[in-house]
């Protein structure tokens, strides 16, 4: 993979500010960003609110014009259409819904190719989880009997869970051992950055749930993870 992948533990724009800043700084002065809010269940008005939000959020990191295009479906979209963008921002919501939308349209392949070609992608919350091995880290989100659970598998053997709090530790550990999931749990003010140099922790630190040993270990800011 020649591109850069920013994965956010979720939360509002204040919690995610530092990673958002790193993401925007990695782009040119006046970037063209594709925003995909498909994880959300929204009406027409809700999606207009989403557009207002994303332009304000990304705009807060630049004094220049940030050209944001929003797609509300990815049917028929290929890497050819993606190449016109400097970056892709995939928002949060229901992870299973998002993965299903990508898998059933073949858009997951387009995203992978875009990354392989050197593109930059930001995934927040659900938008981050889909880049792991599986989305079984968030079983509570499968509220409509979605069938797709195998995720995009970009970050090696790891799967993600976002919005992590210590109250979830036991449940995640059990899930990890039961399903053999090597899980990385990201609190809201943290993230991961994957590029040619590897997978690095960003922010206050994350938790690694090792499925084979059953160990739970913190991983600090700046530390690298073996893919």
């Amino acid at each position: 993979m020649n591109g850069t992948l920013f994965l956010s533990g979720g939360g509002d724009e204040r919690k995610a500010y530092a990673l958002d800043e790193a993401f925007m700084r990695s782009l040119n002065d006046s970037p063209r960003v594709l925003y995909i809010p498909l994880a959300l269940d929204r009406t027409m008005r809700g999606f207009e609110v989403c557009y207002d939000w994303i332009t304000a959020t990304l705009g807060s990191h630049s004094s220049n014009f940030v050209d944001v295009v929003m797609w509300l479906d990815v049917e028929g979209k290929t890497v050819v259409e993606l190449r016109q963008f400097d970056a892709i921002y995939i928002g949060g919501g229901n992870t299973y819904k998002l993965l299903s939308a990508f898998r059933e349209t073949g858009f997951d392949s387009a995203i992978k190719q875009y990354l392989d070609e050197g593109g930059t992608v930001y995934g927040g919350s659900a938008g981050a989880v889909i880049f792991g091995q599986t989305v079984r880290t968030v079983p509570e989100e499968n509220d409509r009997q979605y069938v797709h659970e195998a995720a995009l598998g970009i970050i090696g053997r790891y799967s993600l869970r976002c919005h992590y709090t210590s109250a979830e530790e036991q449940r995640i550990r059990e899930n990890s051992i039961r399903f053999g999931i090597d899980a990385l749990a990201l609190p809201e003010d943290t993230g991961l950055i994957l590029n040619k140099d590897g997978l690095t922790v960003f922010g206050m630190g994350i938790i690694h749930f090792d499925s084979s040993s059953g160990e739970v270990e913190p991983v600090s800011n700046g530390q690298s993870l073996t893919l």
Partner: protein
Amino acid sequence: MERFLEGRESAESHDEKVSQFLGREGLRRLDASPKFSGHPEFVERPVNPEAVERLSPDSLRQYFETCGARLERAMALGEETHTTLFPVAAIQKLEPVFYEDAPIPEGPSFIAQPVIRTQFWDKVSQGTSTSFVNIATEHVGARMDEHIGHVHEWLQLMSSMGIKKEDLQYRLTASTERWNSRKVQCEVSKFYYQGMEIGDGVYIPDFPQAERGPLKVSDVGFGMERLLWILRGGNYFPLEGNEHDVDAARSLALIAASGVQPGNRGREYRHRLYSKRLVQSMKSGEEISKLISSAHAGWLPWMAEAKPVQETLGIIAEEYDRNLRRSLLDGLSINHADVGIDVNLPESTFFERLGSTSMDSSEISSLVDEYYRRKL
């Protein structure tokens, strides 16, 4: 019809009542959203210019006044709403009632609201635009039978225009939505004509309130331009030209006529966005000027307040020319790494600085010619 104007609610659900009513009116029920081809049969009809008169603001206001509705002024696009930067639906006129405990208006009202829906940016095509007029009746405190009565009024209106009820289809859905962090249960009847969604009737039985009991709300609205397209045939867009160019010109004219200046944030961001899109049209300044002027004339009857056309063009011109300079430089930067001149400089200074770059005189001359051809 009188059966639906009874003074008490029956135990029947929304779906039962609405489907009974619409079935009697001759509409066909659908179980799923139809696929819209983008090229329906009515496009082939001979163009009927008289259709414009039937869907004029005055005709609509006259009709709904006879139905007992109060006429409400549209929101200005420069007005802040509680939920979105620009109005996206006529019902937002009632946001002070929903969110600020403003007095509940008596009876139904008719609103013709110009709206901006940027989410359709990549879907612009025949039948789909990022700006249009949402014509709607709104009634706070409406009982279910009164809501159905309003749907009936719209069906009667469309029938009198030539949109027959038996050519309409409908689909019933329900959703729970978050409006300004309040959970709102909506019972929805969506209406279609030859596969194209033309509007909907939304009944909200319990809109939560902070300081009073929940409100019942009836919101029945349609896209004016889609109805006009059905009646008129031909081109959905009222102006000739590439659909994306026309859409950008219309939306930009609406935004600028509302007094919204360009910028990188908030409402100003949309002005800049549309301006940049319009620059990509490669049209001459004269053509763009005509396009915007025509668009402005089209919006004027629907807007509560609008800047005159010359002032609107003035608001657009400086930003447009700036974006044009940017666009021309971006095209040259592939072969000339040193053309990063500040596009905010005065024109004369800008062109002077070009002379100090690696561009040769013929390239500069071509650029200048192209600029003056396309500038506003």
